[in-house]
């Protein structure tokens, strides 16, 4: 493997740690080996051949049709000179392409059952593969985990992680380290009980499985009213991070199930003892045993669908003069958290969007200070709650640059009305017990989203780019001083990472949800992005959703750029 070493990185301002532990947390260079660029989910590339001086010359080199419509959310991987990319709807395909020319090396077409669609809540999504030791791994919407030979595409093993008919699915790539491939599970809208499970990379045998909701008699089970833990959700549908020095796998959990909280607590802002662990929480699992080492709950007794699943970005940052092993997380609930990733201690929690469901987070107790009028209750509407259930930030990933010390976050600016309703649990059916209106703008400004550069140490916004429509893509940042992101109009932009000036843009013809990646083959740097307008979420946004649907047609395309 031709990996750019940290020692070659020059001119990096203050924040980066140059120790053996940092070298183990290697950054993306010529290759893009993990969903988030590296195991820390920084989406930072050390490449600078394309930079803020020449990016204006970026042009399309080749394209590849993905063969499916619906939301395209895949982050391609580049290993050597091979690119691995998945599509929506299954995935319908897993492709291995020549990363330089786009020529197809092999394609894998999963045999999907024709009845999984009703147990996927929010879009037929697939966010990519993981690669390790000559194999690629991916999850399927029928809750299966598959290993393929990376050279030939031959299926090596294929396991049912859970029963899809009971509401389970897998939408995100697993995490790989040592001999293990670790997956989360989706289904928080179907009353499942969330878990994280590790499999042996070679044999596909389960190595460990840890539920995120403690069972009867287990510590934390007392935070659930009666038997409500059995359908408590706490799913793990997004991606994890891994620290090889600490041997900790970080994963975070979804909303509590059902959305209506009267079933599982006091139905008031007086939530204790029913915090509903470990929903809407950050967890750290021992890499070998899967035991939960520490947990911090972002939204106790969640009733707003504030999933805590967003990525945990690992970086060593300077807090109060001390180099701190941090985990940074921009939550659905509108707060940007900095935790100590070694012990889970809460270091800061600042709103990055207008937030009114809570006045702030008490740093001593770690608990949010709620506004009781913004908590929906059985038959009682909470009006104009900000952020809405799509969140201040959703799954679309942020990036973090050690060069600028800034996090680049795609944010929403919307509020909602929401109330809890009576509803019985039925296996395989939506279990929300909630009614909501999302066709509402935010409390400040007509823009429904904003790309924000956030300083996690100074706890303030450096710059922002307001956009008219919600659903901005994930972001990628590079040592070339650039940030890349896209929107539902289909416009991909390259922005100066320090100033926020837009230096280049190109319309790929359909909405962009996922950040691009960048890589080098044969000494030349490329930028690749997957595009296909979001489908699913806009359907419950009324007239705002109509505007997103009208912004561009659905699509499925991979576009590669170079200078």
């Amino acid at each position, binding site marked *: 493997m031709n990996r750019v070493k940290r020692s070659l990185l020059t001119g990096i301002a203050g924040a980066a740690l140059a120790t053996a532990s940092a070298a183990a947390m290697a950054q993306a260079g010529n290759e893009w080996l993990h969903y988030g660029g590296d195991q820390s989910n920084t989406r930072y590339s050390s490449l600078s051949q394309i930079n803020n001086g020449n990016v204006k010359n970026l042009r399309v080199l080749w394209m590849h049709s993905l063969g499916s419509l619906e939301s395209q959310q895949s982050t391609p991987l580049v290993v050597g000179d091979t690119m691995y990319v998945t599509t929506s709807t299954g995935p319908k395909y897993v492709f291995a392409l020549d990363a330089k020319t786009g020529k197809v090396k092999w394609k894998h077409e999963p045999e999907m059952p024709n009845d999984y*669609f*009703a*147990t996927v809540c929010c879009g037929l999504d697939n966010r990519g593969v993981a690669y390790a030791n000559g194999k690629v791994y991916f999850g399927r919407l029928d809750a299966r985990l598959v290993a393929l030979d990376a050279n030939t595409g031959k299926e090596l093993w294929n396991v049912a992680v859970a029963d899809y008919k009971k509401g389970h699915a897998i939408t995100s790539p697993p995490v790989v380290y040592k001999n293990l491939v670790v997956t989360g599970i989706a289904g928080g809208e179907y009353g499942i009980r969330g878990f994280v499970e590790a499999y042996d990379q070679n044999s596909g045998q389960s190595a460990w499985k840890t539920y995120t909701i403690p069972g009867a008699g287990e510590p934390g089970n007392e935070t659930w009213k009666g038997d409500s833990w059995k359908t408590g959700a706490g799913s793990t549908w997004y991606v994890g991070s891994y620290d090889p020095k600490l041997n900790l796998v970080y994963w975070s959990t979804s909303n509590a199930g059902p959305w209506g909280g009267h079933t599982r607590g006091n139905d008031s802002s007086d939530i204790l003892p029913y915090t509903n662990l470990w929903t809407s929480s950050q967890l750290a699992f021992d890499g070998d045993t899967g035991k939960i080492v520490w947990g911090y709950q972002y939204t106790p007794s969640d009733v707003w669908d504030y999933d805590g699943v967003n990525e945990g970005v690992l970086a060593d940052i300077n807090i109060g003069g001390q180099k701190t092993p941090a985990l940074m997380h921009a939550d659905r609930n509108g707060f940007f958290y900095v935790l100590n990733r070694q012990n889970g201690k809460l270091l800061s929690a600042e709103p990055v969007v207008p937030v009114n469901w809570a006045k702030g987070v008490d740093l001593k107790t770690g608990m949010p200070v709620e506004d009781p009028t913004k908590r929906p209750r059985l038959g009682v509407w909470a009006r104009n709650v900000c952020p809405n259930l799509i969140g201040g930030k959703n799954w679309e990933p942020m990036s973090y640059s050690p060069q600028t010390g800034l996090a680049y976050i795609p944010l929403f600016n919307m509020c909602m009305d929401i109330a809890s309703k009576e509803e019985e649990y039925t296996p395989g059916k939506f279990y929300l017990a909630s009614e909501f209106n999302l066709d509402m703008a935010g409390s400040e400004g007509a823009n429904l989203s904003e790309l924000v550069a956030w300083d996690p140490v100074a706890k303030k916004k450096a710059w922002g780019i307001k956009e008219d429509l919600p659903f901005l893509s994930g972001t990628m940042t590079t040592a070339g001083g650039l940030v890349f992101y896209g929107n539902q109009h289909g416009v991909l932009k390259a922005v100066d990472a320090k100033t926020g000036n837009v230096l280049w843009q190109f319309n790929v013809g359909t909405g962009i949800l996922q950040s691009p990646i960048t890589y080098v083959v044969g000494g030349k740097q490329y930028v690749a992005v997957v595009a296909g307008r979001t489908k699913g979420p806009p359907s419950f946004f009324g007239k705002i959703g109509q505007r997103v649907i009208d912004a561009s047609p659905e699509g499925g395309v991979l576009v590669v750029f170079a200078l």
Partner: protein
Amino acid sequence: MVSKSRGAALRCAVAATALVLAPVMTAAADEASERPINPYEGRTELVPEGKSLFNQYCSHCHGPDAVQGERPRDLRRLRIRYGDNAIGVFYTTINNGRMDKGMPPWKGVLEEDVVWRIFTFLSAVQTQP
């Protein structure tokens, strides 16, 4: 479903939990004699409750208040698409689902009474051709 007189249908609606469905409609639900009847037809005072039920059970796919940008999911277009047979398609689809399109079957999960209140709301918001 065997066609019932209006009076019989209303009595069945009142005793909703005792309502027994006749054999399920065939796919060719365009025979007027086999078309189901909305026991709440014309009861405009039930529209707000039907809307609330729709929002609770259907809106996460079909849109709050049935406002929907994705054409295939837009239930305001039932009449444009199916004409007089809209009620038949609605009833069959709610009961049996469309598994390859992500619509789950609601038979046995949603009571008849709820289904017809929802239809009463939908009837009030149909897009004019």
